[in-house]
């Protein structure tokens, strides 16, 4: 697998230079040269009129006998997480395009509503119920999932890009020796090759990359919560729940979970909030989060933050929205004093309605805002809070 320039064909015309998304081509002495860092995206090959750029692909043999789309249905404290349903709704579309079945895999103990996964689109549910799987014992999860994959050979395996998913799914991919794409925001099936097209933001959301896994199977991807919408359950759907035994003794468990402490003081509920009010650097100092809190209370909203206030210790990390914080998709997102760095936008731009309040008219946040107010947030926000309280009879 390599890229090279045919020196005899290259005229040094330079038409390849500007098309490289990473600016890695330079014409030196009338011959194009490719610098280190090329990922063989092929943009230059299409741009060359002289067929002078050649990408040599070593044909890999496609692993055979793999069929069906699988969704890892994650639970915490025996309750299925919302991302499980979101993945089923997206997985259903992929399975329909491939004309194959959709299976949910649920590992846990006495999980509530595992049968309901059928109503949300699964044709089969592999339910591994064992007391050892009640908590997030990732070694057991890794062992159990690897076993199921080896036995049933799914073509595609999707999981939530949650703390647990991002921690144990790469181990599964590592053991099986297959490709895994992190944090996808778009999934589709290539109509010709039938490959899973996995699109994800990279370079902090500046660039989108579409990734495929050509030959190894299953094609694995993690997907951020709230990127896809969950569909309404169809209680008339027919499907099968298959109980699978878990043999704890055959899995090597090298780590042990001693304690899970739910952080109630930091309970932020950003994940499920319909309305979020967030503050940014524009607040100037930690005490000023008070006006954000008051607006949030008037709206019945959860409180979020961009990264700088979290970095400076004004507000705790569970409030952080963005690339390294939470991805949210509320009905209404109010951004106060947030300039809108791409990393923040990556975590909230799919919100249904975005209101931005900022004193800089050129702040990038206004590019994604549904409604924008250019002004002093210390004037605008309290005024808005006041009006809301009055209209809702809260004063």
């Amino acid at each position, binding site marked *: 697998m390599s890229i090279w320039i045919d020196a005899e064909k290259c005229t040094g015309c330079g038409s390849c230079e*500007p*098309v490289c998304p990473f600016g890695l081509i330079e014409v030196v002495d009338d011959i194009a040269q490719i610098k280190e860092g090329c990922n063989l*995206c092929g943009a230059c090959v299409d741009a060359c009129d002289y067929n002078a750029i050649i990408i040599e692909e070593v044909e890999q043999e496609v692993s055979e006998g793999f069929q069906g789309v699988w969704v890892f249905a994650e639970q915490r404290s025996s309750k299925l997480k919302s991302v499980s349903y979101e993945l089923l709704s997206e997985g259903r579309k992929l399975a329909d395009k491939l004309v194959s079945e959709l299976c949910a895999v649920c590992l846990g103990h006495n999980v509530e509503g595992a049968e309901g996964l059928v109503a949300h689109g699964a044709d089969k549910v592999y339910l591994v119920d064992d007391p050892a799987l009640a908590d*997030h014992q990732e070694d057991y999860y890794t062992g159990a999932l690897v076993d199921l994959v080896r036995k049933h050979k799914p073509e595609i395996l999707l999981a939530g890009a949650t703390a647990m998913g991002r921690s144990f799914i*790469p181990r599964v991919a590592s053991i099986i020796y297959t490709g895994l794409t992190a*944090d996808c925001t778009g999934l589709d099936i290539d109509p010709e090759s039938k490959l899973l097209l996995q699109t994800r933001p990279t370079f902090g959301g*500046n660039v989108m990359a579409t990734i495929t*896994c050509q030959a190894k199977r299953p094609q694995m991807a993690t997907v951020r919560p709230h990127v896809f919408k969950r569909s309404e359950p169809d209680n008339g759907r027919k499907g099968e729940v298959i109980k699978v035994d878990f043999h704890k003794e055959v899995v090597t468990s090298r780590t042990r979970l001693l304690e899970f402490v739910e952080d109630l003081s930091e309970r932020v509920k950003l994940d499920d909030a319909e309305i979020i009010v967030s503050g940014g650097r524009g607040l100037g100092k930690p005490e000023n989060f008070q006006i954000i809190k008051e607006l949030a209370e008037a709206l019945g909203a959860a409180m979020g933050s961009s990264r700088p206030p979290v970095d400076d210790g004004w507000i705790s990390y569970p409030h952080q929205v963005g690339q390294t914080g939470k991805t949210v998709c509320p009905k209404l997102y109010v951004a106060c004093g947030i300039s809108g760095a791409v990393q923040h936008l990556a975590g909230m731009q799919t919100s249904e309605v975005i209101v931005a309040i900022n004193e800089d008219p050129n702040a990038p946040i206004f590019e994604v805002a549904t409604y924008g107010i250019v*002004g*002093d947030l210390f004037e605008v926000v309290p005024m808005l809070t006041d009006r809301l309280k009055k209209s809702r009879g809260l004063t």
Partner: protein
Amino acid sequence: MNFVVCIKQVPGTTDIKIDPETNTLVREGVPSVINPFDTYALEEGVRLKERCGGKVTAISMGPPQAEEALRETISLGIDEAILISDRAFAGSDTWATSYVLSKAITKIADYDLIICGRQTLDGDTGQVGPGLSEMLGVPFVAYVSKIEEIKEGYLKVQRMVEEGYETMEMSLPAVITVVKEINVPRLPSLRGSMKAKTAQIPVWTAEDISADTDKAGLTGSPTRVVKIFFPQRTHKSEMLQGSTELQVTQLMEKLEEII
């Protein structure tokens, strides 16, 4: 005890600009830095060494210029830095990167704990740490925010999850990834900077670490980037006009429709 920290040299993303005419990333003049998430891993490695004694080594798989980043780690208190570099490694995805690092660490042989940052700034995957642990066949815990106890063959940590935190214990050797809550990285010391200037940074090739080149680089990578594009913002924004009061009144009307 012996500690190994895995780092990556990345472009300082905040400086990344897109050329509006060609719609490509402007790389020129963008400084390369140690992946910011890795600075917490480096600091924790140095602190653990100060606490337990032993040695802390930094490794990085990358092109020859990644030597610069490794040299910088010496100024931050790292004892030895090794560059893993070979043309055969170019284009490695997370699987192939995990493989190459696992071979390098196998060559180091004598290690108790491997520390990685939670993810890189450019790729953002966070997959190399967990992948690496399976290839080495050692325990793994992600998102560590506190080392509670460490002694010969034993480690107890706190790690962050969405709903709170978990306390985990494991045997050593092990791999962990750390979050920024774990420490405040120190600045380079004068003595460290002097040491960094003259430090020898050995370069290990595929042959040196007995890496199977069929499992490294693009050849060994299961995934391929097939398309790169720039997110288009087609969003229509409505900027509210008039006095502050008028703007708030208009916004109230809009909000009444939604909530």
